[in-house]
């Protein structure tokens, strides 16, 4: 499905989380297109390699990421990226996060530790984010327990969701944009 010819501005929101937490499921549930996948390759000079050999050792890393799209109005198009949260993908983050509106950290209580690094990076980058607990079946933890376990500050919104459901994923995105709007309005008042 092509974009309207009047589309002028691409915006992005990044959904981060560990493997199998439901990032692609969330993208799929709200996207107007079947999620697409692309790859980015990075070639990095080897670190700690003896360069007396005259040949610089390089390693190439390939990371796949999924994305979907929502046409918001005649001009604005929102792209949603599912980004792997693990530490070894750090190099992808700078590219994905530059100019992003904000991020959703999708967490799974079976592997909460997977989200620590992601949250740390987002705070370091100064990227605003919300945390969404993707919950299948009966809840096993309260949101307060999750907030404690993640050592999440009180001003970061934390919500429960079912990433398979369009309305639920939509509500998570609305929570994020409301959060951004509050931050942005507060900033305008103080400046």
């Amino acid at each position: 499905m092509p974009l309207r010819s009047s589309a002028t501005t691409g915006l992005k929101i990044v959904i981060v989380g560990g493997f199998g937490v439901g990032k692609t499921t969330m993208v799929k549930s709200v996207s107007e297109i079947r999620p697409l996948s692309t790859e980015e390759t990075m070639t990095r000079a080897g670190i700690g390699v003896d360069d007396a050999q005259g040949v610089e050792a390089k390693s190439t890393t390939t990371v796949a990421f999924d994305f979907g799209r929502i046409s918001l109005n005649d001009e604005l198009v929102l792209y949603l990226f599912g980004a792997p949260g693990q530490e070894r993908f750090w190099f992808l983050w700078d590219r994905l996060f530059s100019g992003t509106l904000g991020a959703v950290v999708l967490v799974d209580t079976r592997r909460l530790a997977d989200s620590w690094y992601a949250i740390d990076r987002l705070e370091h980058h100064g990227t605003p984010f919300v945390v969404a607990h993707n919950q299948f079946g009966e809840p096993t933890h309260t949101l307060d327990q999750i907030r404690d376990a993640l050592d999440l500050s009180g001003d970061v919104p934390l919500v429960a969701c079912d990433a398979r459901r369009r309305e639920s994923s939509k509500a998570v995105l609305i929570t994020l944009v409301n959060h951004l709007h509050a931050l942005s309005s507060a900033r305008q008042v103080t400046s």
Partner: protein
Amino acid sequence: MSPRLEDEVPDRLYMVTGGRSSVTDDAFDLVTLIVSEGDPTPGMQSEHARILRLCRSPMAVVEIAAELRLPVSVVCILLCDLLDTGRITARNPRPAPAETRLPDPDMLKQVLVGLQNL
């Protein structure tokens, strides 16, 4: 299953870009919208021609990469060629105000309305 990029012969990517590995300026974001300014011409490199056909309607850099099954960095090199020769235009993402890094509330309001109407 489509073949993975990393299983491809590296020569292909080398050929596509004429051996270039990076673009100097950061002309494109993942969500920069690209629009063709004309039709492909005979003898044009096939990837350039495909981009011009794909971008008859605006298409984001990342979508072009997915369609061509090429890494984003390679697509950016190809797009630079086309931009330099005036065959495409790039609609850049609205930059966040430098001092705040937060988008302005009016634009966020539009995003909110768009999401609520989904």
